[in-house]
């Protein structure tokens, strides 16, 4: 979470709420849940909630097996190490006020109906129990939520003339890639691409998925591979157009008729893609630029290199 807060200083707010698993007097659950909660709040009374929060989590193995009495001593020692007023901390630690706070926190959590900890709420919605809470998944959510500001609430109006010729130039960090668009074969895809280009959708967007021998894919400002412009249009398959070599421009999709803003350029013939993906153009210049794009695969494991950005896309009408 610290890392995410650093990466998204403007877009992420993190709130910690106590849900000590106290249990009932008849069947207590975590014997030191209440005291650890009280310790963090007692430290919070002196402005060091997060410091105690970190100490508790980082040293869990050290204290989880202690008796409650020994844990209390351990906490007081840590309070001293954190530079707290130990006398005040000791008093607050077992104060009626904080004991009540911990009990209320347990009661409230019960009322809400949490089934375990930690329970994560993202913009008012519970995190689904079948999804692992990882930094990667959390970052994906943040990126997609911020993308919503850019998304369109209407489909683009049909503004192109399918009898005309359109040439798009992707100005990338590695140079220009010039693409002839097939307005007659794939009017929806070309119209959308031109609409997005003119609205700056592609500006500063990374080629997020570049797989040598396969394709280079871009068009998702979130960089996650999940991002859409807010609308979806149907596949346009022409029997005379095939992914028959390098430089074929196709629309990426997440199933039939889910085309949005993501597109790809083939690096070689990809006959397995024929029929499932709209072909709407071909590279006529700058294929060397396309092949020089930094390889990266967001669906793989490990660190991702930054990738190369599209600076802007300009459209020429002939």
């Amino acid at each position, binding site marked *: 979470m610290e890392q995410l807060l650093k990466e998204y200083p403007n877009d*992420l707010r993190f709130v910690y709420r106590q849900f000590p698993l106290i249990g009932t007097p008849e069947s207590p659950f975590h014997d030191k849940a209440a005291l650890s909660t009280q310790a963090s709040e007692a430290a919070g009374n002196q402005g060091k909630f997060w410091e105690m929060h970190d100490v508790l989590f980082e040293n869990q193995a050290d204290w989880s097996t202690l008796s409650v009495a020994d844990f209390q001593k351990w906490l007081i020692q840590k309070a001293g190490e954190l530079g707290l007023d130990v006398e005040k901390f000791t008093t607050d630690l077992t104060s009626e006020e904080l004991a009540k706070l911990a009990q209320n926190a347990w009661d409230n959590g019960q009322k809400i109906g949490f089934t375990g900890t930690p329970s994560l709420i993202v913009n*008012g919605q519970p995190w689904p129990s079948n999804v692992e809470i990882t930094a990667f998944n959390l970052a994906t959510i943040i990126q997609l939520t911020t993308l919503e500001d850019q998304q369109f609430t209407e489909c683009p109006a049909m503004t192109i003339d399918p009898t005309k010729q359109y040439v798009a130039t992707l100005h990338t960090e590695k140079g220009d890639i010039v693409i002839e668009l097939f307005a007659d074969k794939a009017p929806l895809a070309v119209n959308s691409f031109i609409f997005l280009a003119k609205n700056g959708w592609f500006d500063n967007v990374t080629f997020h998925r570049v797989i040598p021998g396969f394709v280079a894919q871009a068009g998702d400002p979130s960089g996650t591979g999940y991002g859409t412009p807010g609308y979806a249009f149907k596949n346009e398959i022409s029997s005379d157009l095939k992914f028959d070599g390098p430089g074929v421009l196709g629309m990426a999709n997440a199933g039939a008729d889910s085309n949005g803003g993501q597109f790809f350029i083939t690096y070689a013939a990809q006959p397995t893609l024929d029929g499932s993906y709209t072909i709407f153009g071909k590279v006529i210049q700058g294929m060397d630029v396309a092949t020089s794009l930094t390889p990266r695969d967001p669906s793989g494991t490990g660190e991702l290199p930054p990738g190369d950005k599209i600076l802007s896309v300009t459209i020429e009408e002939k």
Partner: protein
Amino acid sequence: MKKIFLLFLILLTVSLAGCKPQALTASIPTSTATTEARPAPTVVLTVPTQSAFLPDSGCTVVTKKPTPGPTAESIYPPVSDTDHVKGPASAKVTMIEYSDFQ
């Protein structure tokens, strides 16, 4: 939020463990990957709910309802002065963690 839930559905990663926040490491779930490299977004997310009923224009809006903002009404109390908070109030994403130290 519907969109994000679609993401969740498709992510279908390992079940939520009762883990502590230290588990929030930078691991990358391999299961988010499709088994075969396709030009599609690496994970299916955005299939419009009415994809079979695309209007004559051949296009449909998929963001009908914006994701609730950080202050949206919910059964969880809004962020208040008594909360322990990091990050700006103006953030687009608010994550509230209910947790036990033990």
